[in-house]
Each structure stands twice: as C-alpha cells, then as structure tokens.
C-alpha cells in the first residue's frame, strides 16, 4: 500500500496552492475598475455615504492589510460579506454549491455511459461502417458549441415534445434530477466525444497489442480479450483527459447554468460580476480553483488504482 501513501502527503501541497490562488484572486479582483460602494449606493450618493460604506467593508485600508483581514476571516470560516446579498460569501456559496456539483457529477457519469460503449463498438469494428458512423457523429459533438446544443435540446425535448422541464431546479430528488437531465445531456454530448475519441484510439492500439495476441493465443474468446485486457489498459490514459476536462467543465457551468436557469455557482458568479459584488466573485473563483485541484487529486488516485505500475 506504499503506492497510496501520497494520499496522505499530497494534501499538504494543497496549502500553498490554495494560498496562492487566494492571493491572485484577491489582488486581481481589486484591480477591476469600478467601486463596489458606488455600485451599491447608486450614482447620486454623497461622498460621505460612500466613505462610510468603504469604511464599513474595510475598502479604505491598504490592500495588504485587507488581504490579512481576509486571511484572518478565512481562518474563522468566513470570506467577507456579499455586498448584494448581505450574508457571508462562504455561506452564500454553500447554498449554491449543490446544483453545480450535481450538474458536474451527472454530466460526467452520463459522458462515461455514452463514451465507453460507443468507443468499444467503434474499436471492435475498426474500419467498418459502424466505426465510421460513430466517428462521424462524434465530430458533430465536438463541432457544436454547448450553448447552441443546449438551446436546441431545450426546444426539442422540453418545448416541442415536453418530456423534460425547460429550466430551473426542483425541491425533491426526482424534480432535481428531471431538471438536471437537459443541462447534463448538453454537457455530456460534448464531453463524451472527447472521451470517445481518446478511448477508441487506445482500444484500437490495445486490440492489436501483444497483450491481446497473447490472450487470444491461450484461447480466450474475443469478449474476454476485450473486457478483461483491452478495456482496463485503455482506460488509463483517458483518466487524465477526463480530469482536465472536468476542470474545464467547472468553469463551463457558468454558461450552462445561465441558459437553464440553474441556481448554482455559475449563475451566482455571473450576477456577482454584473453587480460588482467582488467578494462573491473572489469566493466563487477560489472554490472553482480548489475544485479543480481536488479533481486532479482524485484523478491521480484513480490512475494509481487503474495502473499498478504508476508511482506518485
């Protein structure tokens, strides 16, 4: 179990990463032109009122002191007050994290469910019509941008044939899943094509590999050769590709959540940017960054589990 010892030591490396992310987002957010106090109070606010607000939120302190306050608050589990929502940013994010997390999880699971069988079907019929058909269709998946695909799916499956709700989120588990179906499908149609191509290429290679030949030479039927030897070996390079794409996907939820009116972090981020709610922008950016780091950590664990040769 020595190979898994990095699970204990690696999180220590996250401390400087999170620290760096917080510093960068903190400084950059404050470099955006515009004054939150002015946005909050409107154009005709008196200078005194603005000064009061600035003092109230600590915006009149030097930036390094603001950052130290920020770190002190972070240690107490607070990220500063949202100017618009008037509650702590971390608590605000806490109420919005579930739809985003559920959306990413459903999208990834759906992508895998689409990609693995199709990749297997294409690879095992390499060069035949079914292979060409799958590759042709997957080219469309890469070509169509998600925002367009999302609108088309919405029109088709929610308006024309009202099978699924158009937008929003629900209260019960069933409602939530029904509302997540369309946005997840939108993301999965794009994401699965990337996975499909990588998986198919790896499977084609492994089907021709010495490992497969050796398995056939000891009388294994093609199904065992494929599912027990080709598939486990083909998954290894795709794990990291998936991790990179999930990182990209977390940022991509901004668009999807806006289209489908999902009350998640992406939507929160868009509104916060418009209302110059810098504390929220910074908080969401930090959570996104940490989530990406976490996903890559999980991918490392998965890689070690899938390939006994890998040492981290």
């Amino acid at each position, binding site marked *: 179990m020595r190979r898994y010892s*990095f699970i204990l*030591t690696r999180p*220590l*490396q996250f401390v400087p990463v999170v620290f760096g992310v917080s510093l960068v987002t903190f400084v950059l957010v404050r470099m955006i032109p515009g004054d939150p106090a002015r946005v909050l109070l409107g154009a005709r606010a008196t200078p005194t009122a603005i000064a009061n607000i600035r003092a109230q939120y600590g915006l009149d302190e030097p930036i390094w002191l603001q950052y130290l306050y920020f770190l002190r608050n972070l240690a107490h589990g607070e990220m500063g007050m949202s100017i618009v929502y008037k509650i702590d940013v971390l608590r605000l994010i806490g109420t919005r994290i579930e739809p985003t997390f559920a959306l990413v999880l459903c999208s990834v699971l759906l992508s895998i469910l689409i990609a693995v069988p199709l990749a297997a079907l294409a690879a095992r019929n390499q060069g035949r019509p079914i292979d060409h058909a799958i590759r042709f269709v997957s080219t469309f998946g890469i070509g169509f941008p998600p925002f367009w695909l999302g609108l088309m799916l919405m029109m088709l499956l929610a308006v024309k044939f009202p099978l699924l709700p158009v937008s929003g989120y629900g209260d019960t588990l069933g409602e939530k899943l029904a509302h997540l179906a369309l946005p997840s499908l939108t993301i999965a149609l794009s994401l699965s094509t990337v996975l499909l191509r990588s998986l198919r290429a790896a499977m084609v290679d492994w089907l021709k*590999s*010495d*490992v497969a*030949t*050796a*398995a*056939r*030479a*000891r*009388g*294994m*039927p093609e199904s*065992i050769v494929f599912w*027990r*030897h080709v598939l*486990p*070996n083909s998954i*290894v390079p795709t794990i990291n590709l998936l991790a990179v794409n999930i990182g990209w996907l977390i940022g991509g939820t901004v668009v999807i959540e806006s289209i489908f009116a999902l009350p998640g972090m992406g939507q929160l981020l868009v509104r916060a940017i418009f209302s110059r709610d810098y504390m929220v922008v910074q908080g969401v950016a930090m959570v996104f960054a940490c989530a990406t780091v976490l996903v890559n950590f999980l991918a490392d664990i998965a890689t070690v589990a*899938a*390939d*006994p*040769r890998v040492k981290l």
Partner: protein
Amino acid sequence: MSAALLSVRDLSVAVNGAEGPRTLLDHVSLDLSPGEILGLVGESGSGKSLLCRTLLQLLPSRALSVTGGTAMMGGRDLLALDEAQMQQVRGAEIGMIFQNPSSHLDPVMRVGEQIAEGLRFHRRLDRAAAKAEAIALMGQVGFTDPPRQFGAYPHEFSGGMRQRAMIAVALACDPKILIADEPTTALDVTIQAQILRLLMELRESRGLSIILITHDLGVVAQTCDRVAVMRQGQVVEVGEKRALLAHPRHSYTRALIASHPSMPVDDEADEVDDVTDPADAADPARVVVLPSRPLVEIDDLDVRFPVAGGLFGRRRSFSAVAGVSLQIRPGETVGIVGESGSGKSTLARAMLGLTPVSDGHVAFDGLSLRGQPGAALARIRQQAAMVFQDPFNSLNPRLTIGQTLAEVLRVQGKVAPAAIPARVEELLRLVELDPALAGRRPRQLSGGQCQRAGIARALAVDPRLIVADECVAALDVTIQAQIVALFQRLVATMDLTLVFIAHDLAIVRHLCTRVVVMHHGRIVEEGLCAEVFERPREAYTAALIAAIPDIDPDRRLIAPPPALAV
C-alpha cells in the same frame, strides 16, 4: 520417426497488397513428433513467426490469408476449424510463448490471474481451484514463493521471471505442443540458459512437443532434436540437428553457421583459433604499440540515481556504477560485457559526459570532467561519438540519412560547407552503404542499413573515440557479423579507439583486444580478451562464458545457479 503429432503440408500464406497478392509462406511442410523439440531458424522476415501464428489462426493482419495447404493435428485440419473450435485448440492443445514477455503480459493484471484465466476458461475451474492450480504451476516453472508472487504484477519481476510466468500461462491448460517464439532473445545469456533448461525439463516431465523459433544456431544446437531452416517463406532445409550442423546442404544454412560467433575453448585455443577473422590475427601487434597517455581515464567512478523519496520521503539512491577505475588508451578496442543492469551503459554514458558523475573522476584526453567541465565536454563532443542500440529510434525519423550526416558536419565545422555533400558520400562509402540511400529516411531502410547510417553519423564527427552501446543486439546474426566486420575494418584502417558494449560475449571475443566484465556496477575482471575468455579468474566470468549456447551440440550448456545469475 513415430506418427507425427502435427503435420503441416504445403502451407501457403499470401498478403493482398496494392500490387496484388504476394506470397509470404510458400508450400511449407513440416512434421512434429510427440516429445520432440523442433528448431525453426531463419532471419527476421523469413516467415518463421508467421508460420506459427498461422497454425493458431492468429494472422497479424486482415490482409493476410491462407492460400493453401493443411495442418493436421489429431485427425483435424487446424486451418479448417472455425473460431469457436479454434479457441479450444489455442491454449488447451497448443500453447504459445513470445519473444518479449514484458509486452505480452497484461501490465494491469496480476500475474497469477493471467495464469488462472486459461484454467477457468478452458477447464471450467472455479476461482479457488484455478488459483491453487496456478500456484502449483508457478512452483513448477521456478517461482520461489508462488503464493505471494501470485498477486504480483508483471513489472515487479525481472525479464527472466516474466518469461517463466509466460511459460506458466502457456502451460496452464496442459497443451501437447508449445510454440516458443524467440523465447530467450530479450534475455541475458545466463537467464537464457536457465529458461532453455526449464523448457527441456518440461519436455521431459510432461512429454511436451516444442517448436522453438530462434535466430541463434547455438540455442538450436543445445536444445533441439531436429532443425528446419527457413528463408523467404520457404523451408530450405530440414534435418536432424547434428547432421544438419555438420553437413549443411543449403548455401544459406552454411552462411548461417559461418556467421555464428562461436567461442573457442581452452583446449583449442593454442591452435589457429579463427581462420575467418583476419583482424584477430593482427591483434598482438596492436596491443604492443600502445602510447602511454590514456585517452579516457576513469578513477573511482560512482554514478547514483535517486529512486525514491518525494518532498518528505527519505531520499534513497541506486548505485548504477560503484567504484570503477578504468583506463583506455588510444587505438585500443575495449569490450565491456555484463548482464543487463550491470552498469555497462551507465559507464559508457559517464565516459561521454552524458550522465552526471556522483563521485570520482572522468577525464578525456587529460581534461577532467569535474575539473574543467566546459573544456572537457567541448573536447568530448568534438572527438568522441556514440552508436546506439536501436538504429531506428536513435535517428531522427524526419531527416534523411544525408541530412542527418550533413547536420553533424555543419555543427562540427571541421569540413567546409561546400565540401559537405562530398564528405557525406565518402562517409556512406566508408560504412559500405550505397550513397544513393542518402535521400532515404530511417523507416525506409533495413535494420542493418540503419545501423550503418548510425555508425556513419558517429564517424562524421571524425572521432578519436567511438562508444558503441549494444549496437548489434537488435540485428539478425548474419547482419551482426557484417557490422562487426565493418568495425574491425574501421579500427584497422583508421586511428580509432573503440569501446564496445555488449551482452554477447562471443562478439566481444571476436572484436576486442581487451575486455572488462561488469557485475552490479563493479568491474569484476578485466584483461586481454584471449586471457580472460580462456582462463577466467572470477567465478562470475566463468559462469557467463559457460552460459553461451555453443553451436557444437556436444559442448553442453551450463545454466548457472539462480543465485549467481540474479
């Protein structure tokens, strides 16, 4: 001969290429008797592997098809069986092992599971019974601790143990025939001897028939009963081993036997040892007139590589070379031999400043790599060159041979730009390559041609020292002999110092005046080739020499005890 177990008649295989069908196997006929070991020899591309794959209906491409012939086994024609019937033959009646166990074992599946897989499928054993059977089998093929090793992965084993695992996989369903496709080519001589011994023991204990594909007539002489020689898809000669080796009828068989680098032994050493080798005869003269100052001076060299320890882990290191001292004088040909992992490549790389030195000194032409690293490296890059093991991968695939050579000449600046094309042509002639090949890329050349190009690239530096690292290991025997002869001519005609690294002792014996034997990063023995090979002082050297399969069937192969071979 008793009734044949397997009888192949007029087997032909063709490939459907763009220019119409081309015959790869041409009316091959062979018989295999029960309990017999049949050697199948020939160069790469001669069709010996293809023949065996065809028997199992495992043709490597859809473009290949059987165009005629039969392969009778137990009253059935193997070539006429459908896929379902064939699956019952593969593994259960004919097992197969391969040249490279590392690439044929599934890297993400436990070794024991791979052995058990066939048992569960063919003999319908349940998980526990298959595991027990697999563990028993692992014991039979020489695993030291089968219950523990059952759960290990292929990469945790050495090459020799992987081949034992592959043999266990092939034997799992108790086949009558074992096809061994170059089973020892990727292994060290001592390990090769052990694996060959294991195969012979299995033949005795199980009555197994074996088809042994090899390019090494020494292996044939030591293990086989009968030999079939293949060339260009045809069986050119079949016969009993002794008769065939003593009185080869076909000219190709004679060429194969002539190019086998056999080792002379003690009692014959005082006689004229090798008539085919004029350069050897000139050796004593070269040894005597050596100038005094060494070209390469290595003093108490240590090279260590970190192996573990991350941010917080304890740093550990692996000593690839430990306490090696060696002097190489101008004009010498020095062979460095040893098994894989003995540190010979690392030593060569350290000599050329290609790997950081952990301790000790390396000096080239009086300049120390530690004292004046800049000046020493500059001198090494101008006066030394390396020839690599893999001729394809050490040449840039996007450049033609001519471009590769011209690049070296341009960078070195020893030849005027206008004279470069002429020099390229001269270099190609020097390594006996047709100058017309200058426009080809590496993939358009054969292995032997590629290695000649690699040597030409080394010569382009106009070097005083050439370090050749296993540069013939990947080549066919007849090509090997040609490359070795090329080196002999180059050394004889040019003012060249050669460091020749090889695991093949016979070749070093042929080519070099001095030999250095390495084991576990240390020099265990060094001296003049003739003396070391005839009267080895160290047990390790003696074991290495004894493990070389000799072409004379009566000179028995001695497999060293596993403890020595590591």
